[in-house]
């Protein structure tokens, strides 16, 4: 890049990839494990493929990606890998059958062939990494294209965890686990739900984390006033940098009316062969209960505001053209935005766009194509903007304003209500009690026996799993509520039983073994982090 003119500013893309830890070895077939399998097929593998191809083609690109500890745990888990392999093979089989079924249906045959090709590509990539795609993402990080950041260990919502030790454990277990997967310490973190309150930055500094991300008003309502709005990072009193979210780019992608993913040419999520095709034909690809559900092959486009039976057939070529057009539009808007910002700022601005990774592919089927077109266009078609990682930006601008950001989250209404309302507030008294008890145990048992140490570590796992913000979130949004309530309850009850057994020095080996087998997250966990 030497000899080139400095860009007017930077675009910093953050994709937050996260799923709660769902792994049920005790059942041969478990519905909620689909969250992972669908995300691998539709998001993680397509993104990995696109990034690898960009790198291969010599396209300059940078992006930041959270791979949360719970997601990394699942992606590196042998049982889930094997189950996914079987799942993917079945899907490929269905796609092959579909190519055949539709060969005389010109309106669907191209789409069927597209699925066959995409799924076979996915399988090739999956096999290339022997089922552990973390290796692929790690390589992209080692080559400098990607900055992988960590997250709270189980996506715990820090401002609502009142015990300092519980917050600290979410962070220190996460950074240790990152080391295990990626071979070095993480430089930055995504706070679960971007939930922040003053002084959490001190805990981040303790873990030697150098940056994190905030919703726009976390920066805009900071004190003193933020000199550059959200277009430059700030330093918290602890010295950790905070990058604020740009709302313009958020709207361009997320807005239900005007956002890209709602375009009529894009694939309709809700019209799926799992419902449309003859039952006997589709049954082998459904869960063992035989209930019709989405299987992932969809032949219709959004079309417009019409009922499902009025949707028109999907046209892969139109959709691809539209993704390219939207990428061009997005880039043009960034150029204009950054040119203008550069004219009123005395430094190069950085525009931070933060999205759930699973938006790209799972929900917005053409999202990965959009990113592919976008990075290529940014590389070949203009010189105003460049993509960048937080670490790189902080190297260019090591001096930043020191402010105290405001408590905030990226959830509805901007604060904590999504995770604290009538549907889920009952969990906090139990979570807090369990945290308090975990601290008590960790302090009491500084020289445990082997079995006690295992039980103490398992108690920490159960507490962490209960703390996933996902459960409170699901209770609010109203789908799969029962599962979320049950997970919260099960982990808390497991914790309480372990607590009693440890304190009374009556550990039941079978009980402990069974929990270690089922809830195996963080194999290298050390409960003593709670003693601090």
């Amino acid at each position, binding site marked *: 890049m030497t000899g080139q003119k400095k860009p007017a500013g930077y675009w910093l893309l953050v994709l937050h990839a996260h799923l709660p830890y769902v792994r049920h070895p005790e059942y041969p077939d478990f519905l909620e494990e689909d*969250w992972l399998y669908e995300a691998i097929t539709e998001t993680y593998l397509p993104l990995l493929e696109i990034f690898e191809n960009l790198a291969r083609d010599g396209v300059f690109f940078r992006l930041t990606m959270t791979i949360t500890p719970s997601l990394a745990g699942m992606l590196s888990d042998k049982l889930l890998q094997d189950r996914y392999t079987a799942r993917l093979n079945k899907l490929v089989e269905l796609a092959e059958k579909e190519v055949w079924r539709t060969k*005389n249906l010109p309106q669907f045959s191209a789409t069927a062939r597209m699925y066959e090709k995409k799924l076979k590509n996915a399988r090739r990539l999956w096999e290339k990494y022997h089922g552990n795609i973390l290796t692929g993402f790690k390589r992209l990080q080692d080559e400098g294209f990607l900055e992988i950041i960590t997250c709270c260990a189980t996506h715990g919502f820090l401002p609502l965890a009142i015990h300092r030790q519980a917050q600290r454990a979410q962070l220190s277990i996460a950074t240790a686990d990152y080391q295990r997967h990626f071979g070095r310490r993480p430089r930055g973190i995504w706070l679960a739900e971007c939930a922040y309150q003053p002084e959490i930055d001190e805990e981040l500094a303790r873990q030697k984390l150098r940056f994190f991300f905030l919703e726009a008003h976390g920066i805009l*309502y900071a004190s*003193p006033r933020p000199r550059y709005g959200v277009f430059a990072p700030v330093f918290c009193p602890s010295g950790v940098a905070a990058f604020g979210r740009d709302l313009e780019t958020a709207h361009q992608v997320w807005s239900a009316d005007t956002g890209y993913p709602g375009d009529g040419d894009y694939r309709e999520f809700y019209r799926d062969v799992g419902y449309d095709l003859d039952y006997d034909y589709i049954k082998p690809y459904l869960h063992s209960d035989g209930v019709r559900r989405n299987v992932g092959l969809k032949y219709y486009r959004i079309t417009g505001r019409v009922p499902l039976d009025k949707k028109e057939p999907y046209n892969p070529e139109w959709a691809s053209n539209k993704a390219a057009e939207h990428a061009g539009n997005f880039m043009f808007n960034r150029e204009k935005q950054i040119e203008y910002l550069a004219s009123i700022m005395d430094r190069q601005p950085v525009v931070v766009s933060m999205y759930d990774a699973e938006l790209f592919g799972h929900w917005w089927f053409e999202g990965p194509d959009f990113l592919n077109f976008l990075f290529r266009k940014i590389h070949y078609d203009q010189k105003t903007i460049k993509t960048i990682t937080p670490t790189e930006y902080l190297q260019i601008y090591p001096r930043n304003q020191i402010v105290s950001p405001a*408590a905030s989250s990226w959830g509805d209404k901007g604060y904590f209500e999504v995770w604290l309302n009538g549907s889920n507030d009952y969990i906090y008294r139990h979570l807090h009690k369990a945290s308090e008890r975990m601290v008590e145990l960790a302090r009491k048992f500084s020289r445990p026996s082997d079995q006690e140490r295992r039980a103490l570590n398992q108690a920490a796992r159960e507490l962490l799993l209960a703390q996933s913000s996902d459960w409170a979130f699901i209770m609010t949004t109203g789908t799969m509520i029962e599962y979320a309530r049950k997970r919260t309850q099960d982990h808390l*009850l497991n914790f309480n039983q372990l607590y009693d057994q440890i304190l009374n020095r009556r550990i039941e080996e079978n009980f402990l073994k069974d929990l270690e087998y089922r809830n195996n997250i963080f194999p290298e966990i050390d409960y003593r982090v709670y003693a601090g």
Partner: protein
Amino acid sequence: MVKSVSSGKIVRETGTKPSPTGLPAAYGETKLVILPRDPLWIFAYWEIDDLTRKELKKKFGANYSASRYALRVYDVTDIDFDGSNAHAYFDVQINPDANNWYINCQKTNRAWCVDLGLILPDGKFYPIIRSNVVKMPRVGISPIIDEKWGILQKEFEQLMQLSGLERIGKSSFDVVKLMKERWEEIVAVSLPSSLAVSSFRLQPKKGAAKKDFWLKADTELIVYGSTERDAVLTVQGKKVNLRDDGSFSLRFSLPDGVIDIPIEARSADKKMGKKIIFKVSRKSVKG
């Protein structure tokens, strides 16, 4: 966060173990905790153990049943609260059976501490247990200007507008919400409709307005058969996996036109083979 919007449960028959049900109703302690929900609202939860309640009854005798439980909310902004130095306070009467409450604090950018106590018949407040202190999320542009990072007011305002100051809290961006909105939109445009195909989740409303008389029909073709269990079978040149007993079954869509379906089986040692060709034609006549 969870991306799936499908709902429904799998019936889990295997290995189900009876697990202890329900979370503890109480932990046998007297405790009050407050959490901020947003800049204005606090969530409080508490527990009063039996011993404490007994002592209160003993202490106040007949006055106990004439007393009311209340939360006293102290404004403790920027002070080290000692119970008597609050800037101000207000009381919230609570239901005696409640163990949690949402409190509207009415003022922003403050710090709060709460006592749970009894309001005695003479109006005096008797505190039972004190909460933690919460500093509420601060809202609004800070009045404090950093001299080292000075900027003209006009330019600052411009940057604030560009940063999206007017959009704060007005919309959320999460996949689940987006997907739900889209689904609700589809449902909204789908009702009433009498044309929904029965296998969709959308059922036409009963008694919906009468539409024109209609008919829909289509054809599919099933090809089935069997051969030696270890034979290699191809249909239209593509390999087909045989079931364990050597049988096979395939479905095709059958539009108008002529379709050739050659079926070929070869023995495992490739020495023998058989071939059958179906020629299928369909022609629609509407009337």
